[in-house]
């Protein structure tokens, strides 16, 4: 624990000085006024997956998979089988099964769990390589595992088919595309496969269709934006939006790289020092906006207008690991600095203002008056430029917040390297719920 505190501190030391981003203790827009710490893991908690409206599972480096009730914080099940860290987890929702999850681990096994009973329903072991990503195709009742090769399995955990082996780099991410296609990220390449499903399962096969080699560095993240488009982000800050049907580039943005390049000398030095400052750690989208977590910063790209609508170069004190777009133009992000921050997309009062460095002083980005890059020009030109306002932050973890899960009722679950899971709740909502429960119980008891 101490390691994380100290480590985290060292990492953010110099950054803290430069950043002016500090919201203070008064956070009227922050509704998370109740937190509950869930203890149970013995090592870094990396994954959270939602099972249904009130349950979620957590998994991490200790190989444990725990099922929790998000409303009460109760630990419902403890799924123990993996001897090594869990590398991937996915909810397994098919027509026949509810509340199932698939987990993959470094011990080269994949298990299917029934979270209702806590039993392991299926398991495959002695895989050629550990599985790094999982994809469940509910429509076809099959699931795919990505490691050094891509395997297709049916719901009975029978291997249907698999691809060739990629020796140096395995599949790090994959998403489903229309027409039974799958795109997988293998190092710098995106490979599109087609799954040929026939009536008999034995004839199911997977076929490589094409390779997209436009990224200059390894692809870090891959998401589907909507039915027509998917997006990928690379280690050097390339954001490419592809067409889902013909796999052509819709948008190619190396904006982040270029801003750094076009900046003055110290900026270049900075880039060389911190290569991963440019890396796109995470992408998220709501169909209209794509949010890219680039280094410490957040960039919001509008797919429709094809421009960056808002950005924060130093949204966090350290790498942003996960982000989420909420309705009402809210954005959440979590970072290695141990905090979760909540943002709001706000319209700028005057579109001409961005030119004024005085106004943008606090951004820590637009300070330079010689912003010559094309994208900044675009920004200036666009009337729809907005600003990301920090509305609140959640501080509780003492280590990097790996990811978070947002429940429909407003509660937020965060997991962290400090082995903890924290459930954040809206205090007023909880108070009201408790009152409801109280009067319900009173009624049942017929008085005190």
């Amino acid at each position, binding site marked *: 624990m101490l390691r994380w505190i100290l480590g985290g*501190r060292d990492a953010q030391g110099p950054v803290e000085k430069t950043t002016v981003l500090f919201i*203070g203790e008064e956070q009227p827009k922050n509704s998370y006024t*109740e937190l*509950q*710490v869930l203890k149970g893991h013995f090592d870094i908690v990396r994954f959270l997956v939602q099972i249904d409206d009130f349950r979620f599972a957590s998994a991490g480096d200790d190989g444990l998979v725990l099922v929790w009730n998000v409303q*009460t914080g109760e630990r419902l099940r403890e799924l123990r089988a993996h001897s090594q860290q869990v590398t991937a987890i996915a909810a397994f929702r098919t027509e026949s099964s509810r509340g199932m999850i698939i987990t993959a681990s470094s011990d080269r096994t994949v298990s299917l769990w029934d979270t209702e009973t806590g039993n392991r329903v299926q398991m495959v072991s002695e895989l050629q390589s550990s599985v790094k990503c999982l994809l469940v195709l509910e429509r076809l009742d099959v699931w795919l595992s990505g490691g050094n090769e891509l395997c297709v399995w049916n719901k009975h955990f029978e291997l249907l088919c698999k691809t060739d082996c990629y020796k140096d780099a395995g599949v790090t991410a994959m998403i489903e595309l229309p027409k039974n296609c799958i795109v997988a990220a293998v190092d710098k390449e995106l490979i599109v496969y087609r799954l040929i499903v026939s009536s008999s399962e034995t004839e199911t096969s997977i076929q490589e269709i094409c390779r997209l080699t436009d990224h200059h560095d390894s692809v870090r993240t891959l998401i589907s934006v909507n039915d027509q488009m998917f997006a990928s982000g690379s280690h050097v800050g390339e954001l490419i939006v592809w067409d889902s049907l013909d796999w052509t580039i819709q948008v190619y943005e190396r904006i982040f790289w270029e801003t750094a390049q076009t900046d003055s000398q110290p900026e270049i030095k900075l880039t060389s020092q911190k290569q991963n400052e440019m890396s796109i750690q995470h992408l998220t989208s709501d169909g209209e906006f794509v949010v890219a977590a680039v280094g410490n910063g957040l960039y919001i790209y509008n797919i429709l207008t094809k421009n960056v609508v808002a950005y924060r170069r130093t949204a966090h004190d350290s790498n942003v690991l996960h982000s989420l777009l909420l309705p009402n133009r809210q954005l959440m992000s979590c970072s290695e600095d141990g905090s979760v921050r909540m943002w709001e997309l706000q319209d700028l009062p005057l579109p001409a203002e961005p030119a004024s460095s005085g106004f943008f002083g606090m951004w820590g980005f637009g300070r330079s008056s010689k912003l010559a890059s094309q994208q900044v020009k675009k920004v200036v030109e666009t009337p729809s430029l907005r600003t990301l306002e920090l509305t609140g932050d959640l501080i509780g973890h003492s280590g990097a917040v790996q990811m978070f899960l947002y429940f429909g009722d407003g509660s937020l679950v965060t997991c962290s390297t400090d082995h903890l899971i924290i459930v954040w709740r809206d205090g007023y909502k909880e108070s009201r719920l*408790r009152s409801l429960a*109280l009067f319900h119980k*009173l009624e049942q008891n017929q008085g*005190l």
Partner: protein
Amino acid sequence: MIGSPDLVALTKDDDYGDTYVDPSLIPEEFSVPLFPHAGNANPWSKTSFAKFTKDFILISEFSEQVGPQPLITIPNDSKVCGTFDLNYFSLRIMSVDYQASFVGHPPGCGYPKLNFVEDSKVVLGDSKEGAFAYIHHLTLYDLEARGFVRPFCMAYVSADETKIMRQFLELSSEFSKASECLKTGNRKAFASELEKKLKDLEYTRTVLHRETELQKKTNGCYSTQAIEKANELANVEKSIYEHKDLLKQISSYPNRKTKDPEFLPYELDNPPDSAEADQDSVSNDPNREELAEDSSCARRASYTPQLIKAKSAKCFDKRLKTLEELCDLYFFNQTMDQLTHIEKMFRGDLCYIHTSQIERALLKQQKITDFLFEDYKEWEEEEEEGAEKQPYEEKLTLVCNMPPSSPVFPGEPMSLESYTSCVETVPIKMEQDVSEDGLHDTELTESGPCDITQDNLEESMNAEMKGSVGSGESIEVLGTERSFPAQGPVMKSESLAVHQGQNPEVDRRKEASRRTNSEDSIEVLSTTESVIPEDLRASYACAVHEEDPGVEAWGGDSYQQGFPAPRQHLDVQEAGRYENIRVDSSCCLGQEGRVCEEPSTELAQECCANGVVKEEPLSCRQGDPALQVDFCLAEEGAPGGHPASELNPNYLSDEVSRMNLDDASDSTSFMSASTSSDRASSPFLPGNPVTVKHKKKAGQSALRFIRQYPFAQQAIFCLLSGRTLVVLGADEGTVRKLVNALSIFVPNLGKYAEAVKPWVTSPFQITDLQNWKLIGLHRMASPTGSSMLYSLNRYSRYISIVDTDHKTLRSPAYRGSLVSRLADHRTQIKRGSTYFMHVQSMLTQLSSRAFLYTFCHHLHLPISPEEGQESVASRRASFLHHILGCKEEDARIVHFLSELIKQFYLQGPRKGAFAFNYVTSFLYKI
């Protein structure tokens, strides 16, 4: 018992004679009966002329060998009794035993009968010794004792007569429990003793049988030896039969008792009891055999060892069984624990006990909120007790505030079956034996000469019993448990009648006469040789009347609503009793004498009522409206509770300052000597339950903190609103002391003060904030220290920090008025315990507000489905502001407490999430 000479102690002649002749009387005792020692600085001390310093419990026995003798005193300390003559007092208390402890051959029955006697409860006053006692007589069974019974009594001896009288019901119920425990153990021991003896007898019978056969063979059927043997055999058979009968009787102990939940917790300490008994008898058997063989060898005509034993019981040289042996060691120890508990419970003077009883009774009513600030142990105990509350105890609460709680038996509740079965298994076996030998039996006994001896024996038993008790037939049980339920309400109705004031004189007279003659349980006896006015005050009317003000004043208001008194039932009872009285009064002596004394008694009553007792009812009434409100009437109820909030701390302080006591000395010297107990009042340690004692001690440091730090209010506000307060400092002692002081403000402190961590030397995590509300933190100059400061900084939004080294506080602002009343740095309160009381009363008030706020439906939920959250919120805000008078920050306190109440009500003491607010903190300096 009517007509028993012992009872008519207060005869008119004696009264007058002694009162006016005795020159040693102090005249002022007449005029100011309440304060008999006007010069005494301590008006509560009545013990000045008693020869003992503390109340104590005395167990005495009426030994058949040496007469009344004291056995045990609790506490077992020679200092307690001082020069008090226990032997003499034992004689006194044993001489007022009215119970029908009668065993023997009742007319028309051939076998000895065990009587399951109710205990009797008597109050006795010995003004010469300055001792008054509640006496609980009980009878234990002993196979070797005369008539199988051993009379014992447990006495609560006190110098304060009023205390005995007013606590009579509590004493009675507590002692009944102890007695029940003793008797249970005794029955068990008696049963196993009987079993052993039966085995011996049966063995003897087989030996005899064999010998008889032998005799018959050698000497012929009608030889003298043979007949002798046959007679002996018959004797043994009869004895067996009788013992079987006794066993049956003891095992068929009235099941009435067994229905009492109170009865259950006795644990069977050695379940393989019967097996053990078997072993015993087996191991004994060789002896027996030897004995028998010895006797047969000596040709000393077949005396069975048992029969000799039975007779030898009368010999004075025989050692009688000790109480431990009689009652089975486990039960004996249980009883001793219980008695020690009783002694502790009734420690201190009446006023103190009475107040704490009222407090407990009130606490019982606020189970929902008292986890917040009340002493954990108390309510837990109440809850335990509440679960197994007997109906008769419930009735007691009507009259006497509360039956003192005593879950003394921590043992697992044992099923009654297991107890009875261990006794009953044998009789079943016996029955078979009987049927086998039945014919044989009767034949022999009818003609046996031993019949005569047996009869003689029993007759002599009878005679003895009669001798000691006084009247064989008309034995009446005085204070039976049965009579208690009825008694309580009756007293109450009487008091109401008196206060309605139609001809009180007559009423009182009736009461008086009734007390004397009816079978009611409070009997006050006094020594005949010293009848001084002190004794007159101990008359029945007084005793009864004295309870009136208290009962009426506070009980009339709050309890009548809760438990509507069964009036009709009472009226019937009363009518019945009045009839009794008329008959009885004719035979009562000394009636007029008491009437003459009436005025002085009355005066005493009024003094008593005005001076001491009325204080308490007033104070507890203040809280009543708030406690009583219904949810729907909550808003109306609230203003009623409001005036109480104007309770002026200065009022309290005045009194205290007048006492001119040293600030630092926090002893409770103004209470009676026995109140300031010897328990060490150290600051609470982890693992030990927090007691009021600790908290009182903490009150002193809290007071100092408030005086010393102007930002005390902010700190206390943090604690009350659920924001964790960190006390940071380099010196462990200082930090611990401050944490200890502030702990009295922590809501939901927990039984072991789990919410407080007095000393931490490692950096804390977010989980600690969830568990602890008050943390003492070590400031260190090491890397650990810096990382700790880092964590302080990181979690600064959740915590407030008191820095004891720099005397600063970093916390949100507080602008309310609530805490300023709680922690006024100009307070005149000087003593820690007083301040603690002040805090406690304020906090109780606060929790009643929180209760009100929590349980007002429409403050939290919409009245109609169309109503939005906003209007509910505004309604809530206006309620807090206008009805409860809580401004922004105060509202936060109430809200936090309300959330705690909700959580507690819904899921019990389990801790879940912790709530916080995003507010700016400020740095406060001295």
